[in-house]
Each structure stands twice: as C-alpha cells, then as structure tokens.
C-alpha cells in the first residue's frame, strides 16, 4: 500500500473520524454476531422442517417458556447465573488470545469443594460460612484453570486440549469424592455429599424466585469489564492478546498475565459450582456436570468475549435451556434438540469470524477509496 495522504491537512483532522465512523466501528462487533445467530436459527429451522416440525411453533414455545411470563423469566434467570460465570471463564483468557474450553471442570470442582467444606463448618454462622464456601469454590476453580494457563506459558501445552482433558479429570475426581470419602450414607440412589445445613444455604433475592448467584454474576461481569477496559492490567492483557511478541518487547509480564487471567476465569467458574451447591442442589453430586461450562463457551464467543455483552447473551441462551422441557412435551422433540441448536449457532459464529475487517461498511478507512 502506498502512503496516501489521508489527513485532512489541518491539525487533528482525520478522514475517518466523526459519529458515522465511530458507529460503523462499534456496530461491526454487534451486527456480525447477531447475523451469525440468525443464520444459526435459520439452519436450525431447516433442520426442524426436515423433521416435519414447525420452526414457528418452536420459537413461539421458546418465547413462551423462556420469556413469556414472570414465572418463565424467573426460570430463565435462575439458569443465567452459572452461565454468566462459565462464560467469564472463557472470555477472560480469550482476551489474552487463549481458548479455554474446560470451565465445566472448574464448576464441578468448585462445587464439590464447597459441598465438602460445608459439612465441616456447620458450626459457623451463615454470614461467615457462606462467603467461605464461595471463596473455597473460587479458589478450587482458580487453581484448576490457572494450572492450564501455567502449563501453557511455562511448558507450551495447548490450553484448549489441556483444559478439556482436565475437565474430565475434574468430573472423575468429583465422582470419586461423592461416591467415596465425602459420600453421605443417607444418599442412596444418587451419591451426594451431606446436605447443607439450612443456615448455609443461599436463598433467593427479595421479591423473586431467583437465587443471589444472578446478582453476583452480573456484578462479576461488570467488574471484569472494568478490569479489561479501564485498568492498566486489562490493557496489558489486551496487548499480550493482540501480539505476544510486542508485549514481550515492551517488557510486559506475559506469564503473570496469562496465569492471572486464567486463574480469575477459573475462580468465576468455581464460584458457579459453589452457587449450584449452596443455592440450587443443596449438596454436591453428579448434577454439577450438566454442561453449563460448555454452553458458556458459546455465550462467550457470541458476546465477542466482552463481559458486558455476556449478560444479554447468557439470558437468551438460558431462555432456550429453560424452554427445553416444554419443547420436549409439546413438540415431541428430544432434549438434545437444544444442543443441536447450540451447535448450529456455534458453527455460524465460528464462520462469522472470517468476516471481521472484510466488510467495507464497517471500515471507515476504506469508505473514500475505489
């Protein structure tokens, strides 16, 4: 490319400034994922048509069961909390250029550690014990995913594969613990840890049937956004994610950033496990591994790893999960239908990644040129 005079001549006047240019730059990150989401829905509709089902009925049912009434909203929002945490576990490492897909392992481990600890601290008052449970879950998750980051930086182990395989190890570890050392003898057909004492359980937020995990999850998203966009640590992480060689030449502590951000993501996922135990299941058992960690991957990619955008996307996906029971009963579609939908959307999102920077409408730098 030749050096073309693009400046307007005067001081501080740029050819591609102004609100249209700013809007174009910002809308790329919104419209491309939205388009991919719609494309995923379209392919899924074709899939339904091939099965002889009506896509219109499907989406109407999803709306009704996920967002139609206050009751369905509460159902959706209760499922949103673990998804937010799981998505943060993908989004934070992603800002450093790492693809971590093993959040499920941190959720499971955080849950089982919190469930195990709960039996030992029944003597403590709730306001002291509950933060301790959350902290334990968070630390377990942080250690698990932080180890993935450390393996990546110090030994060059691929973080995607490592985190996925470590998720299987975590699930096996949980099964071992709840069927062995931590098993409550009273849990007969579903091995579990001892049920949490009533004063250790996390209740619902006032005026709704949704536990406190949602509020904490939203706060964590907000704080993560502040960390990434408004602090020097977040900036350093973005530089390392943008070009690790440039970050090294600038002397940025790339290793510490990688371990720190993966550990923080893991801490959020571990927190999700602690909330599942203390607010939903009442004890740690196999129900911890229900795939929130994997849905979180889809949410993070749809939200372009922006912690603020995670919130609406997580609510949307939670709505689909909340409606799967109704869809099953009314349309005779199996439970896995939601997974098929998620799969189509995910493929569309990955494909849409090739569109960034290609569409002239989003690139004000190229507006004036032939």
């Amino acid at each position, binding site marked *: 490319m030749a050096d073309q005079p693009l400046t307007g001549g005067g001081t501080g006047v740029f050819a591609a400034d102004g609100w249209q240019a700013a809007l174009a730059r910002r809308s790329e990150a919104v419209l491309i994922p939205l388009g991919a989401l719609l494309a995923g829905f379209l392919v899924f509709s074709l899939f339904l048509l091939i099965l002889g089902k009506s896509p219109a009925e499907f989406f109407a049912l999803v709306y009704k069961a996920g967002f139609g009434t206050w009751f369905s909203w509460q159902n959706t929002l209760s499922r949103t909390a673990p998804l937010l945490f799981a998505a943060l576990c993908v989004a934070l490492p992603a800002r450093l250029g790492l693809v971590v897909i093993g959040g499920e392992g941190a959720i499971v481990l955080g849950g089982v550690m919190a469930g195990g600890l709960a039996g030992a601290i029944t003597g403590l008052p709730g306001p002291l014990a509950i933060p301790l449970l959350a902290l334990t879950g968070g630390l377990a998750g942080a250690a698990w995913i932080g180890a993935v980051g450390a393996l990546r930086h110090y030994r060059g182990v691929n973080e995607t594969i490592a985190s996925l395989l470590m998720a299987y190890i975590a699930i096996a570890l949980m099964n071992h613990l709840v069927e062995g050392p931590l098993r409550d003898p009273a849990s007969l057909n579903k091995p579990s840890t001892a049920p949490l004492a009533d004063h250790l359980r996390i209740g619902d937020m006032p005026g709704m049937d949704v536990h406190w995990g949602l509020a904490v999850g939203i706060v964590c998203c907000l704080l993560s956004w502040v960390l990434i966009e408004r602090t020097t640590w977040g900036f350093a992480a*973005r530089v390392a994610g943008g070009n690790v060689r440039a970050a090294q030449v600038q*002397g940025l502590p790339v290793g510490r950033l990688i371990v720190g951000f993966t550990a923080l993501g893991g801490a959020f996922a571990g927190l999700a496990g602690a909330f599942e135990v203390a607010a939903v299941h009442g004890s740690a058992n196999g129900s911890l591994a229900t795939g929130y960690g994997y849905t979180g991957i889809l949410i993070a990619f749809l939200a372009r790893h922006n912690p603020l955008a995670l919130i609406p996307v997580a609510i949307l996906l939670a709505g689909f999960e909340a409606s799967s029971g109704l869809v099953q009963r009314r349309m005779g579609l199996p439970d896995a239908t939601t997974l098929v939908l998620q799969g189509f959307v995910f493929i569309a999102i990955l494909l849409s990644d090739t569109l960034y*920077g290609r569409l002239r409408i989003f690139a004000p730098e190229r507006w004036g040129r032939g």
Partner: protein
Amino acid sequence: MTVKSTNPQGALGVETVGMTMRFGGFTALDHVSVGVAPGSFHALLGENGAGKSTLVKCMMGFYHASEGQLMVGGHEVEVPDPRAAHALGLGMVYQHFTLVPSLTAAENLVISRGDTPQVIDWRAESENLRAFMAKMPFSVPLDQPVRALAAGEKQKLEILKQLYLGRKFLILDEPTSVLTLEEADEVLGHVRSLCEAGQISVLMITHKFREVTAYADEVSVLRRGKLVGAGKVADLSHADMAAMMMGDQAPAAPADRAGQSGAPVLSVSGARALDRSGLKDVTIDALNVREREIVGIAGISGNGQMEFMEILTGQRPVKAGSIVVNGTSYHATREEARINCVRYLPEEPLHNACAPKMSVTENIAFRSFDMNGSGTRFWLSNSEMRCRAAELVEAFKVKTASLDSQMASLSGGNVQRAVLARELTGEVDLLIISNPCFGLDFSAVAEIRARIMDARNKGAAVLLMSEDLDEILELADRVLVMSEGRIAYECRADEADVATIGHHMGGHA
C-alpha cells in the same frame, strides 16, 4: 555471450537475455543477461535485495519479466508458470526443505511426480527407485522417514528429487544455509560431479565466496538489480568478488553527526544462547555501545542477528554471560527498560512491535499506558492516551484515517513512524534497532534515518542491526560484522573498507 544448447548427457544450457523486472516504479532487475553453459556450475552472487531471487523467479515462471527473454537449450521459450519451467527441465532447490517429514524418502520421491496414479504400485515403484538410485553418484536411505535424516541428507534428497523428476538445469537457492560446513562440502561436491558428468547444469545463489571458489566454474554478480560483473572463477580472487558485490560505493553523505561518544551504556560480555534451529549457539563475546554512538552490526540475515535482538529484548533465554546497561545488570523487564530508558525498534514493526487489530491510539500507548508522571498507575486514562496519540501522530506525521483506525490499516512507512513516535519520545539512553527501513520507500527511509541520527546526537547509545550495508555505513560510528552467530570483525566507520566488510560477511575470515 552465446551458449551451446545442450550436451550429449542432457545437461541444459540456459540463458537470460536483457531480463528486466519492474514492480510499479521500482526496477528490481535491470537488463540482466546471465548465461549458464551446459554442464557448468554457475554462481550468482549479490547482497540482500540485489535481485538474485527476482532473477530466478523470472526464470522459473513465478514472475513474468517485464522485458527480456529466456533461452533454454538455445531456443527462446515462454514460461508462464512454474509447471512450464518444470516441463522444460528446469528445477529449483530452495533454502528450506520442501519434503514431507513424516513420509519416507521413497514416498517423497513418488508423490513429487505429477503423474502419480490414484493407486500406487509400491513394489514396482520401489524397484524403479532402486534402479534410479543405482545410477546416481550418491544416495540416501529410501525407507526412513525424512524427519530422521540429517540436514545434509535432506538436501541431497532434494537434489535427487530434481534428478528423479528429470530436471536438467537446477537452480539452488542458498542450498547450504542450513547445513554444517562438512555437509555443505559433501552436497556441493556431489552437485559438482553431476555437472562434470554433464548430467545437469547449475545456477547457485550464494553469499559464500568459499563455495564459489571451491565449486563454481563461472560467477555473475548482481548489485541493485544490475549485472555488475561476471567471469571465470579461476580468474577472480575473493577480493575481486567482494569489490564487485559491494561496488565501489562511497558511503552516502552521512547525516549530520554532532558530538563525541561518551561512556559505555550497553555492555554485553560472553552472552550465549541457542539459535532458532536449537542446534547452534549465538555468542556475543564482547560488545560495548557508548552514549552518542551508533554501533552498526552488518551481516547477511540468518547469521544470529535475530537471536541477538531477542537476547536483548529478553525474549530468548541466555545460557551464559552478562548484559549490563548503565552499570547495572539488565534483564529487559519493563521496569529496567523504563529506569534505563531503553527503547526497541524490532524489524517488521507491525509483526513485532504492534498489535495489528488494536487502534493507533492504543498502539502508541504501549510504552506509557501504565505511567503517571514518573510513577505508575492502575486506572487507565483513555483521555490522556488519546491526547498523547494525537500529539505524536501530528509530530511524526503519521498518516492515518483516524486515531481509532486499526494499526493494520496503516501503510508500512506509517506503522514505522507510529512506532518511532512511541519509542523516540522522551529521554532515550539506549536504542536497539533492527532493519528499520526494510521495505520502505525512499522518502520514509531518509526521514527515519534522520530520526535515528537525531536520537544519537541527543546522547543516545544506538545499536543498529541491518542487512543493508549502506545504511550501516551511513549511520554508524563503528561497524561490526556478524557471521555464523559471532561478531567476526570490527572497524571504525570512517576507516571501513567495503571489500573487507564484504569478505567477513561472506563468512571468509
């Protein structure tokens, strides 16, 4: 020069006549006529960017010459693409291997053929291969995976592959750059004997005078896209070849140089690290750069300059030795770089010093985003970053559509200006630079060199690694030559003798 068409054993004579290649306004190749007689071993010498690669790419059909003809076997031919060149019997062996590491030598040979059938009859193929190998003056183990072969064996296999494919004229592009001295001698010895037997003719691109003298019959020298010398190797000394390669260049009028050099800022002693191949060491025994001094490190690329840069930026672990800046031990942490005012300008700035998808504002902030006056900060200040970027873009005349534009949307010259703006603002004690003007146009080059000289005159110690000898002679106070991972030669720039420097760059001390 008239070239006989072929000889009885089949070696092809190939000749370029007035070959010219223009890229836009830039003439990479200017009426170059090189003739390779059948069965001869011809060396093509020249500095980086002299046009050697362009010439052979025109011959092989990768480029279409703007003017001039290619004569193969005495007939003028058209070579629209590499496949046409192959059909004529022209083949090329590259600097780096093009073999599939997980396949055996036999499999590599068979799949390299264009006419491999869908179902391969391996028994017949291996019989054919054995018969083929029996006729060759050297051989390689056929049934081992290629990754198990030594570099020299791989290069022999590359040459065998060309013979297997029936090529009668080989272009070797720096075939020994990844080989040890012994391997290089063995491979080139075999090539030489094939030429003497009249089976092939060879045109070899090289920087190494030793190889030219030992193996080639004739030599052509390119400089700045022009053929500046040619002749029988027997008639030429290394000094003659160096003089032709470098030209009788007087260093360009140096930019204004002011002030005397002072105390040492950077001292490197006995620093040793693995090179990128992981097999050899790069060793810097002793190097000092003083304030108000530019030390230029000349050398052909791939002789350890990249590794030395990575040692200095802390990207490559050091096995031994010490690096001292301003009297204290230096490990290239952000804090040490800040305290000692050390700045880096790596080569290919978009690739090594920028985040291409971040904005111009953010890229300009890389060095200062965590600074608040003389202290550090935790909260980012977007408004300060923006102000600073606007100021520097103005002061360094960076042409960008907007401060919010992605760095990758800027042209090469403007990326380098933006990086210079970031690194040269404020007090600079030590400036470490690699190929700052690579790929830039003339006006940008002059401006960037002036800024480097300006930093020196203001008191900075400058370490300049460059493959462009003219650049070094123009800017440096002292010239070092790096060869085979070591500093091979040192002299003052005003006493520099181009032929001697070229001699050492060519690895012939």
